[in-house]
């Protein structure tokens, strides 16, 4: 892997040949090991790395970009020519934003770990072996993936901005199947040592065992306890709808709601830099420094996400990325939430969530890998999977309990609690196990 000095030299050489333009260059490299398994055996085993440079040139409001994964001198010269040709070929953009000057980037710890970056194929296979053995001991079938990634991102531009980030990620995701039901467990951290593989796989197995032979349940409105992974599956759609401009144009569920109490007062959503389980990247890919943001405080919508252009129009500070999202929890466990639930459903995982109506933020999706009926504060039996048509707005408005937070990692990263909420609408069932 190229070191920071080598990358800096490459980017400076590229930027040095783009005189007359406002230029931004992005270098990205990922080194990955990924071991997939199914039926308690490794089915795919992947290793390798890739890198690329993306160059964006601007001039008098015109903008063009080109990228390449060949970093030799000829390829870089060709990259510059292509970006120049694209930039010179188009009309000015009325919303063009010039490159940012140097920012003050937060110093974030715990993002990189040499031990994680140095894991070998044999290391990952040994971990898969542990998961497979756990399943095989109960005559269950484990499937899933373990990954170890090391990514390096460097930004530089003609306005003097320079930023770099090294991050490692270690993830395990496993689903265990028995004859009549399944369970899922996952864990992720920047440092492999912080991932409790046996706990994640053990959770998948325990859920699968408990989920066998689910009974029928009628669709309807239920009090629910969503485990953190299910919470994030739903909130991801909410996060993607926090755009300030869309709200002003009347096409978003958050139109005219800034300053309003939208959710239960226990709901606090934002971007934090100080959570030990998930430090965000120090910058967005447009160069904006990451900073703490409060989207929702005590159930009141505080602000919406402003792009650089829209922030300029509105005279407010531009926001970096919405994710990773942080949702505050309370000092109790999921088991405590269950103990406080008279009648309801425990939802382990959601699947195939899509918009039904974007303006209302109405979503559909299904439960999978364990759905359980709760009665008088106890999980009493597994039930068959259900389809929901519901909005995360309603889910957060009806909150009646939160657990401690956990890091979750599905498509994007977040730290969220388990959430207990009233009257969540399931409107059909699926026989699939």
């Amino acid at each position, binding site marked *: 892997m190229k070191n920071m000095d080598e990358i800096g030299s490459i980017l400076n050489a590229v930027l040095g040949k783009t005189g007359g333009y406002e230029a931004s260059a992005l270098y990205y490299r990922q080194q*990955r090991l990924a*071991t*997939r398994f*199914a*039926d*308690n*055996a*490794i*089915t795919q*085993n*992947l*290793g*390798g*790395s*890739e890198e690329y440079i993306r160059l964006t040139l601007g001039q008098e409001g015109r*903008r*063009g*970009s*080109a*990228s*390449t*994964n*060949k970093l030799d001198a000829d390829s870089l010269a060709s990259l510059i020519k292509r970006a120049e040709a694209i930039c010179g*070929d188009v*009309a000015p*953009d*009325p*919303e063009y934003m010039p490159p940012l000057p140097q920012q003050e980037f937060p110093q974030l710890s715990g993002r990189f770990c040499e031990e994680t970056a140095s894991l070998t*194929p*044999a290391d*990952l*296979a*040994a971990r898969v*072996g542990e998961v497979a053995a756990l399943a095989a001991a109960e005559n269950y*079938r484990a*499937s899933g*993936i373990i*990954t170890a990634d090391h990514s390096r991102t460097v930004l530089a531009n003609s306005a003097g901005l320079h930023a770099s980030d090294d991050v490692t990620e270690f993830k395990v*995701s*496993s689903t265990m199947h028995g004859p009549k039901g*399944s369970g899922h467990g996952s864990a992720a951290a920047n440092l492999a040592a912080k991932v409790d593989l046996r706990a994640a796989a053990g959770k998948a197995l325990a859920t699968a065992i408990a989920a066998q032979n689910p009974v029928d349940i009628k669709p309807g409105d239920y009090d629910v306890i969503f485990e953190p992974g299910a919470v994030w599956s739903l909130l991801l759609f909410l996060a993607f709808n926090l755009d300030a401009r869309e709200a002003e*144009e009347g*096409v978003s569920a958050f139109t005219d709601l800034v300053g309003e109490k939208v959710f239960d007062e226990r709901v606090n959503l934002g971007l934090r830099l100080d959570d030990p389980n998930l430090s965000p990247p120090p910058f967005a890919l447009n160069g904006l420094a990451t900073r703490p943001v409060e989207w929702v405080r005590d159930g009141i919508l505080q602000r919406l996400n402003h792009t650089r252009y829209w922030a300029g129009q509105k005279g407010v500070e531009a926001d970096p990325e919405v994710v990773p999202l942080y949702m505050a929890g309370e000092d109790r466990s999921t088991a405590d939430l269950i103990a406080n639930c008279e009648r309801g459903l425990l939802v382990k995982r959601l*699947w*195939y969530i899509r918009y*039904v109506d*974007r*303006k209302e933020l*109405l979503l*559909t*999706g*299904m439960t*999978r890998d364990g759905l359980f009926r709760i009665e008088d504060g106890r999980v009493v039996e597994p039930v068959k*999977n259900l*389809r929901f*048509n519901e909005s995360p707005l309603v889910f957060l408005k009806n909150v009646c309990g939160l657990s401690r937070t956990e890091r979750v990692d599905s498509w994007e990263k977040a730290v969220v609690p388990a959430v207990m909420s009233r009257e969540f609408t399931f409107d*059909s069932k*699926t*026989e699939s*196990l």
Partner: protein
Amino acid sequence: MKEFIDLALDVANAAGAAFADMRVVEKRENVIFVERRSLKQLDEYESSGYGVRVLLDGAWGFASSTELNRESVIATAQLAVAMARASATVPQAQPASMAPSPACTDTIVSPCLEDPFAVPNAEKADLLLSACDRMLNVQDVVMAWGMLHFIRMRRVIGNTDGSRLDLTHTVSHPMLEAVAAVGGESQVRNYTDGASQAGYEFIRSSDLLGNSERWAEEAVMKCKADDCPVGKMDLVLSPSHLALTIHESVGHPTELDRILGWEANMAGKSFVEPGFVGEYQYGSDIINFTAGNELVGGLGTWGYDDDGVKLHDFPVVRNGKLVALGCTRETAPLVGWSKSNGCCRADGFASVPINRIPNLYLEPGTDDSVTADDLIADVERGIYIEGRGSFSIDQMRNNFQFGGDLFWLIEGGKRVRPLKKVTYQSQTTSFWRSCDGMAGRHDWRPFGLMNCGKGEPGQVMRMTHGASTCRFRNIDVGGAKL
């Protein structure tokens, strides 16, 4: 390139591999994205790299790199060997093997009448800016966006069977969407004809500019339309809508790797079992699905898959009965089949080829005189649906809920007024068994789908579906709380 492929295969052979291949992928992409009246993105991406697969001691290893030189090729092949050896420590019950496939040498360049990479970017940007401007000039349209995406991918494949393939295809994909807001309501309307393996001629034939105003007006119309009714109703579904229904409820359930449980952790499994082949009534007797590997313009018309299998059309459902599953050289032997039907594909050099949906289409009705209006005429109360909207199906590919892009209430055999927020729910085989009417060949349309996600780490694949307008009886409509 041949020298490097031979070098990688030598490393694998020296390690005792039962099979190995090297796949060099060169990819060029051009993306033009306009939002409102702003050209947000004009990008050209170029990448190249290679992946080496090694089957050793009944286990697989895969490694990739972007550095195509002697030293790196050897290191990458050695890493693939190490990955295979690591895999063998947690072995499959039945050691992995490859169904035989004849060695092939071929060079294919897909049809491309007008090179999209040679069309000036300014022309492409102006097309989108003009189309968005026309849409934004329609009263109550508050947002519009459009994108043109072009891909040229060259795959050079060599394997230890002796195959040497050089395969290039070009893809053109337009998108356009209008967003209207009326009162507290907001609705969208999209371009609905998908993508094609073709050059810029496909963009010209799509007439984005000519249709943009109509699409914008239809977005406004949807805002003012009645909400979806609730109850059991007949549905008349257009080809642009059926593409996704076919994809989710027929394409994915008939992937053999999913049936074997290899995607159980994320994408899910299937209600289909290998023993269903030749026995299972998937749909009514007018339902005939074909894997159209030779479909002209089909996004999956690759000539050869990444296993080096020469691609041909094959039937998947005939007269409603399931007659085949999509398989690869690796999955076929696991259910006792002697050869692959060519469904092994990767989305790039750094991805492991996996079992994928090929082009998959519904054959048109046998009576060419039947039109979509004829199907509607025989509906007392129902809904006509065009285009893609909400779509969601369970992890066994059984229970589903679909929306669409444009909806008309049918009463007394006629389309009477537009609707919005329509959803319908059904289960895969009861849905396809309820199909009792199908328009003829003249109504048949392909739809190229660009974004089929599968695998871990996730891969995005392209394939084309197709159908004539079909009628389905007695489907649950309007289950979603509005």
